[in-house]
């Protein structure tokens, strides 16, 4: 299951990672090698095997519906790169951003 450069670009776009044009070939090779290694899994018959989504069979614990103090806006924004009017500033959003 080798990987094409187009696929790598698609995945990088999904992950919001800019890849420099010069790096794409190398990244494709690295990922391709790792994915080649993964093909050995095809040898295992997992037809009737349930996936392990949680290693221990817990049931969901539930939290009582009680309000506890929130952070102050100041504390919430303390680490923010672009705080404005107690909100998180972001650059303009052009079409093509997700949903």
């Amino acid at each position, binding site marked *: 299951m080798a990987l094409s450069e187009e696929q790598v670009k698609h995945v990088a776009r999904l*992950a*919001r*990672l800019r890849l420099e044009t010069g790096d794409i070939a190398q990244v494709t090779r690295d990922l391709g090698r790792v994915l080649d290694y993964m093909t*050995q*899994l095809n040898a*295992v018959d997992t037809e009737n095997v349930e996936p392990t989504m949680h290693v221990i069979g817990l049931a969901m614990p539930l939290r009582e519906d009680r309000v506890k103090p929130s952070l102050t806006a100041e504390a919430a924004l303390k680490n923010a790169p672009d705080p404005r009017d107690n909100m*998180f500033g*972001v650059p303009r959003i052009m079409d093509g951003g997700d949903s």
Partner: protein
Amino acid sequence: MRIYEMTAGDIASKVRRKDLSATECMEEIAERIGRVEPSVGAFLHLNLDEAMRQARAIDNLPSGERERLPLAGVPVAVKDNMATQSMPTTAASKILEGFVAPYDATVVSRLQHAGAVIVGKTNMDEFAMGSSTEHSAYQLTRNPWDRDRVPGGSSGGSAAAVAAQMVPVALGSDTGGSIRQPASYCGVTGFKPTYGRVSRYGLIAFASSLDQIGPLARNVDDASLIYEVIAGYDPLDASSLRVEKALPKATDVSWANVRIGVPKQYGSSGLDASVQARLAEVISRLESQGASVVEVSLPHTEYAIAAYYLVAPAEASSNLSRFDGVRYGYRASGADLLEMYENTRAQGFGEEVKRRILLGTHALSAGYYDAYYLKAQKIRTLIRQDFEQAFAAVDVILTPTTPDLAFRFGEKSQDPLQMYLSDVYTVTANLAGIPAISTPAGLAGGLPVGMQWLGPIMGEESLLHIARGFEKLWPSEGWPALGGEA
């Protein structure tokens, strides 16, 4: 005995009895760190002023309160992927440079409530992805036994800090061996409890279904002591276990009653000759004590690395999406939102992290989910079943912790796949959720060798008991000479 040579248990009992003040202890620890740290580089952040303040606070407690503190005055180092309000938390990533969490991880507050003093945050592979701590965005950490070699990883800073006797104990996190492998390379004890034993709240997630926090220490008793404090149900972590934790009995191990399994699949390719020889010596010493050592079969182990390197990157790709330059951390410039996202993440993450994000994103993407992620999670079930069957016949499974010894800087970093393959002995415990501990088994050519002990789910009590028994069978050969002391 110097204070920095003392165990956590000794320090705590002396401080409780006022035979030693926490302040005095902290002063000597600070002095030791000042002397040794420049040649090791274990810490990303130190806050010794705050540590001194905490130590004084413990000394000033009414004796009745101080006497109840299991870790009274014990200096502890914490891996930099656990949130602390008193120091930055960066996970050794540029993308979190300067980030100070507005909350403490549950393990951090539990340590503090038990009287421990947090001295600093330790270096690691960025977001815990790596086996050498070379993937830190900030600095190298050197193996105290040989400063040209890596301390292992990803909890390399914690292992090095304990081995260099800067702290008696430290916290690490283990997603595929990140506590046990550096413990092995640095000649210390590293313990990964059952998944869910220790709250993950405040641990910067790498792979949520595999991550588990645990102690690194210079002996099993100290590891158990820390484990006792940090384990237990946390209402802030929905995956934490409500089951009572049981601690090892104080009694000696009667080896004649111990059935030890050695997986036949684990002796295969890539195993360093000195490690293989040490395993044979260990087995014969155990047998000489009357233990029954039998071969067990874990047939799906050969698929563990492939499964692990699908599950872990897939979850990581999701967990690391929140680092988007909006609410905290590094932000690169960009003409619009999309550019800002792509530049921030391209510049903020290191190469290995980006490699795994791409791999994991691919494994979850439309058309590949079933072949990669789902398939890997099914293999995981088979690996769990392998262990269940094996533990029907044996009490504990013994393997080397790593197939090799601490390697030189740069030796493996050029070949990601090669680096992944060296996790062969450790990843199965994370995939199956079982507890595992690495204990030192002497030196080979001046470098530590580690043995790994695996137990069944929630089998910590027996696992720690056996590990402590082994520690007596194979006593420590001492600690590396550092910092110009005699």
